[in-house]
């Protein structure tokens, strides 16, 4: 579904990406057909909760999935005419760091604790550029200055554990930007940091990517972070993109029930009166089963019969509109059979009747689902209790006892 974005060819084009994790006793459908594009210099947010596939998508793009369990089983990732999915590993290694860089949630594990910062930065620089150690060191000092580390010459000789969390993350950003990549992927870069440090690091990230023109994919579960950092947002759920729009539009007119649900379940610091939160009932689906129908159906207050059987495709809100995939004019698209009206989106719940079809037979029930104040049901009908996949508990790769891909899974 490659629309005409603009005159520019997109920097990154992901098309129908499918990623699964296989173990001897289970198959986890982590990413189920994800497509999006990214322009040069653009900042895109990938938003969702644990298990939605946002981290896995980026790992797949970088070909960093844990082997042998993680496998890309479909789709293309076009970066500059190269399909990263089929690129030989040697070429991929060359791309990593030089053209595409990634920073992770916990810099303690991404940095080698026994090497000094200098050694790690010089190593990275020299891996991709033929420069002398002295020149690499100079560049390292420049970079540390750029990210605001005081006294960079002395701090070069420190080890990672001698830095605080925020400073380590800055070092990570410095390393990531060392070779001026065209794309940076930041996977929950500030989740582990205190909020005042988070502000520093995000500010730095924004400033630097604007200055250097680096495109940024920001992966996070925090809608507040993307509101201030990104130009466009993809909302993910259970391995699918369920809504994509420019940032102002996503917050002004959220149109997918999940997005609406998320926005109404977060307490806002600037709320006039404490409004009662409207949580999304139920739990995320068990991704060990192949998705049937819309993955959000079990928890959706707007669901219809068809939602159980037919997984809606990502379509523009208004029909007949020319599809723009990137940039400030990007088309607002959702994957939903029965989107909420603007009034319902503002209210956070349906205002019309006739929704919430009961699960058809054959859909197994989530035995352990919690029930709070209300139960969604058609009047007079027996209630199917949060129909979902069989069995309680966890989702995603963690369910299979696999080593989790970094930063996915439980926060």
């Amino acid at each position: 579904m490659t629309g005409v974005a603009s005159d520019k060819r997109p920097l990154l084009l992901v098309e129908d990406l499918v990623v699964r994790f296989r173990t001897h006793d289970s198959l986890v459908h982590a990413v189920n057909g994800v497509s999006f594009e990214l322009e040069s210099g653009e900042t895109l947010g990938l938003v969702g909760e644990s298990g939605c596939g946002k981290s896995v998508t980026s790992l797949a793009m970088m070909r960093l999935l844990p082997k042998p369990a993680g496998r890309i089983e479909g789709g293309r990732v076009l970066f500059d005419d190269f399909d990263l999915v089929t690129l030989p590993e040697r070429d991929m290694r060359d791309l990593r760091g030089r053209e595409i860089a990634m920073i992770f949630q916990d810099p303690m594990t991404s940095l080698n604790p026994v090497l000094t910062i200098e050694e790690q930065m010089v190593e990275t620089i020299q891996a991709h550029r033929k420069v002398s150690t002295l020149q690499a060191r100079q560049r390292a000092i420049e970079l540390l200055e750029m990210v605001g580390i005081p006294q960079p010459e002395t701090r070069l000789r420190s080890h990672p554990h001698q830095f605080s969390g925020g400073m380590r993350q800055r070092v990570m950003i410095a390393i990531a930007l060392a070779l001026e990549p065209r794309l940076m992927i930041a996977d929950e870069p500030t989740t582990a940091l205190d909020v005042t440090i988070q502000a520093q690091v995000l500010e730095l990230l924004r400033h630097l990517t604007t200055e250097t023109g680096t495109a940024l994919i920001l992966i996070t579960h925090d809608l507040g972070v993307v509101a201030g950092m990104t130009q466009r947002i993809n909302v993910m759920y259970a391995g699918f993109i369920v809504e994509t729009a420019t940032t102002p539009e996503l917050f002004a007119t959220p149109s997918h029930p999940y997005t609406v649900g998320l926005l109404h379940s977060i307490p806002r610091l600037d709320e006039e009166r404490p409004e009662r939160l409207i949580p999304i009932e139920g739990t995320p689906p068990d991704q060990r089963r192949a998705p049937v129908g819309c993955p959000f159906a079990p928890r959706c207050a707007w669901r219809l019969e068809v939602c159980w059987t037919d997984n809606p495709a990502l379509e523009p809100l208004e029909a007949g509109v020319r599809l723009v995939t990137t940039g400030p004019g990007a088309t607002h698209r959702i994957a939903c059979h029965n989107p909420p009206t603007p009034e319902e989106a503002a209210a956070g719940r349906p205002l019309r009747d006739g929704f919430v079809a009961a699960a058809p037979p054959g859909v197994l029930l989530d035995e352990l689902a919690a029930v709070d104040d209300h139960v969604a049901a058609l009047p007079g009908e027996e209630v199917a209790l949060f129909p979902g996949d069989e069995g309680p508990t966890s989702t995603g790769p963690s369910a299979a006892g696999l080593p989790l891909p970094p930063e996915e899974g439980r926060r």
Partner: protein
Amino acid sequence: MTAVPGTTTTPTGGGAAVGEELLRLEELKVWFPITEGIVLERHIGDVQAVDGVTFALRRGETLGLVGESGCGKTTTGRAIVRLYTPTSGRIVFDGVDISTLEGAALRRMRRRMQMIFQDPYASLNPRMNVSAIIAEPMDIHGVGTKRERRERGRELLATVGLNPDFADRYPHEFSGGQRQRIGVARALALNPDLVVADEPISALDVSIQAQIINLLERLQGEFGLTYLFVAHDLSVVAHISDRIAVMYLGRIVELTSSRELNRHPLHPYTVALLSAIPIPDPVVEARRRRIILRGDVPSPVNPPSGCRFHTRCWLRERLGNPESCVTIDPPLTEVAPGHEVACHFADQVDGSAEQVLATGRRPAPSPAPTPAAAPTGPATPPTGPERTLEAPGSGPASA
């Protein structure tokens, strides 16, 4: 709710009536000694985790204790339930000084305050089934027969929204949110008066957090509980709490109602904290100004002299480094009804551009008494890349 043998059934329990003081902390200090040497342990210093905390908690209210890592909020919460013994100061629960209580007397008091823990995966014994976990408080205190305990376990499961038929299951069969509900059920087993919630939702997914928040609010209404809500997420704390105490490096720097804190924060740290919290609304975000604090939090082993915040304080820089910030430790004083602040220059904060722009609200006239301090920032917030308000002299990426 069925009667728990050995406890009262009225939601207010024994003791103070609704609105009266249930818990009072007086200059509570919890210091952890640092020792050196293997055989002869020399005392070389202390981690001053909690260093003089004073507040009162009224029955039926929710007090939020908020701050960043190392501020001492978790230690305070744990000290209240006597997981630590206070180094000095008093903890008075329903008129009884429990700071140094031991043995049977302490155990009796423990029945009336319970704790909810942060990590739903670690706070439940993996080898006990859910029914046993929930009824354990009863078991420990010898309340009820085995059958009564089982019944209560099922009842509590239903109360927290889980299916009672799963009382025989083990924790690993439940999801994170469900496990947290089990933890809540356990805390309710003995009809406590006070529940200390230590980061109860930080480890959960966003959509599940709201479920637990609503659950806690509903239970408070149903059972007349009093909450001490310890968390680092000010958005959540502001939502659920009646009053909020902001902590920094072992002290309370500001204590006031949730609403007041949001509209008129008076401590420079609070203002910085508020400004740093992202709000899920790009329009509001564009109006806001981040205050970037310089440096990292000082170590609690060696706190700064005078005001603990002075090493990072933007107001101090603005005012030209006044002497008092470095030499005199500002006490927590009431500067407006129900509003306590520990700052020499709190009056300068109110009405300042920083305060106004921290939350992105349209400026409103402040009821708190302030001198005529003109806002020092620009009158209209300019949009564009320059969105941070720095302590002068620091670049956009101050460490």
